[in-house]
């Protein structure tokens, strides 16, 4: 009798458990579709960060999560087509990486939640109307470089610097926004900005060489074209003892002197956290757009020596990562 009661009881309990598990499973089965304008180490790291944040929140790809990814391979026409494809598939949340992909996505859907990331100026790009109250179905994380900290660092490492050369692609919206901000903050630090534009990776080498003798240091913003040709600028720097600084920290690992910049994996994790909030039922339009946090100081002592920069112990002590 007791055995039977226990059996029925545990049977009921099991059924109940299975039932709630099934309900939970049902409720949490979600699809996150990610699109990026191009495959690129920083953008790929952002995508992987989103996936990590989802995993940490209990969304496992293949189990209760379907994770999709499409790259437009650099073509805005393809980005528009991917946006239409996602709009038709009606995923739970769409993540759009970089400005053209985000613009195409916002045009394609007014209902499916869109979380953008790696967009420098979402208001100027009309992806959202207002950072504090985006409204509608869109929110996200922007990645405007911590320029003030970066230029203070350049002053600290190269105290004699008066003129800084900035190599940028005039065809990239993000880079132009950064250049204008750099020009605005330079006078207060008694710096003079010398522009060098390069529309294609093939022009980067010439643009950097043209700066030799005219500037005391070179600064490269987070510009896809320029960073793709990073090696040529680093060679110019090493050959002429001209220190090269970058807006991103990954380039420091490849040989620029130093940077205070975003870890794009971390930016992706922050973006993923927003995705999770939306999955849990928050309206994207009521989540303010945040600038990515988590900027780290990374220095490369070998590159610094090659380019004639001595790194003070104080700076070295502050660094999150030192590459020898």
């Amino acid at each position, binding site marked *: 009798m007791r055995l039977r009661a226990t059996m029925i009881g545990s049977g009921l309990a099991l059924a109940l458990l299975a039932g709630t598990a099934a309900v939970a499973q049902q409720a949490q089965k979600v699809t996150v579709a990610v699109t990026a304008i191009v495959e690129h180490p920083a953008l790929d790291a952002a995508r992987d960060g989103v996936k990590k944040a989802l995993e940490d929140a209990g969304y496992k790809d293949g189990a209760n999560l379907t994770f999709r990814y499409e790259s437009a391979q650099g073509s805005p026409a393809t980005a528009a*087509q991917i946006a239409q494809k996602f*709009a038709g*598939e009606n995923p739970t949340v769409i993540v759009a990486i970089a400005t053209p992909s985000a*613009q195409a996505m916002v*045009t394609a859907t007014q209902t499916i939640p869109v979380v953008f990331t790696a967009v420098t100026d979402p208001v100027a790009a009309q992806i959202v109307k207002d950072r504090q109250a985006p409204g509608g179905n869109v929110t996200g994380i922007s990645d405007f470089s911590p320029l003030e900290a970066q230029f203070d660092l350049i002053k600290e490492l190269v105290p004699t610097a008066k003129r800084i050369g900035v190599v940028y692609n005039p065809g990239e919206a993000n880079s132009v926004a950064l250049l204008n901000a750099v020009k605005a903050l330079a006078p207060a630090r008694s710096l003079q900005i010398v522009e060098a534009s390069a529309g294609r990776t093939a022009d980067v080498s010439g643009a950097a060489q043209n700066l030799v003798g005219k500037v005391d240091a070179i600064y490269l913003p987070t510009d896809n074209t320029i960073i793709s040709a990073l090696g040529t600028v680093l060679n110019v720097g090493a050959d002429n003892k001209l220190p090269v600084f970058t807006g991103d920290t990954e380039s420091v690992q490849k040989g620029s002197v130093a940077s205070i910049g975003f870890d794009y994996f971390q930016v992706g994790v922050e973006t993923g956290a927003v995705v999770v909030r939306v999955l849990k039922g928050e309206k994207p339009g009521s989540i303010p757009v945040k600038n990515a946090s988590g900027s780290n100081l990374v220095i490369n002592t070998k590159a610094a020596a090659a380019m004639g920069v001595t790194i003070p112990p104080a700076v070295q002590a502050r660094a999150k990562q030192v590459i020898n």
Partner: protein
Amino acid sequence: MSLIATLGAIEIGLVFALVALGVYITFRVLDFPDLTVDGTLPLGAAVAAAMIAGGVNPVFATLAAIVAGCLAGTVTAWLNIRFAILHLLAGILTMSALFSINLRVMGVPNIPLMNRPTVIDFFTWLNPFIAILGLPARPTLRVLALLIIVTVIAALLARFLKTEFGLAMRATGANPRMARAQGIRTDMYIYVGVALSNGLVALAGALFAQTAGFADVSIGTGTIIAGLAAVILGETIFRSRSIVVAVFSCLIGAIAYRLAIALALNAGWLGLRASDLNLVTAVLVGIALMLPGVANPLRGLFKRSAP
């Protein structure tokens, strides 16, 4: 493939049908391989977007984009005719100059057009019909509006190529020496043809900016490839000597090319990755090009009853 994705592919296919028509005029009619189009597509987008963002009526902005494209084409033709610069090189020169000009026109590399009036707004009278069909409203409206615009332009172009003027242009491309011997001023026809071609491509750029919601200086990349692929795909599907069929096959070719890309985007089940997109598209187009050597199942459908 979802309905929206299919509509999206047709929408972008229709925009690029205008590129195909432009490329058809230069490559096929005039035998003048013109690479200017990589610069005139973003030029059209830049002019239209800058003007619409500045509050100009979208129809006027679109017409201004066409004029700008025609001017750019005229420059290429001028470099070729006046200074005997090889047509390929003349096109490349204009195209690279246009990159800087496009930046000047826009002032910034990217102009968003979300929530701005566009030429599509003039077709809202179609909405009741779309509601009856039960199709998604906004994407269908864009497709129908583009379908009307592109069909009218293709019909006008076919009609133009059948006039005496058009015939002389075709003669210029087919055999310039013979054409000159017949008293045809070949230079003038090259000027008009290349200008017209780039005007059409600029119109495509203007429509892309208005339907996709933004103009970006980078949208020109690969325009010539997309245009050529559409022309050749169209020719593969319809083998015909008729100029009307040839013009309309450009439309079908452009849509087929975009559907191939949509298919490639949906080829995940084959174990393909996002980075394989260009390869998959190339293979799909390549297969279409190989078909005439084997057997084209579509051709029988469109063949005239008896020779």
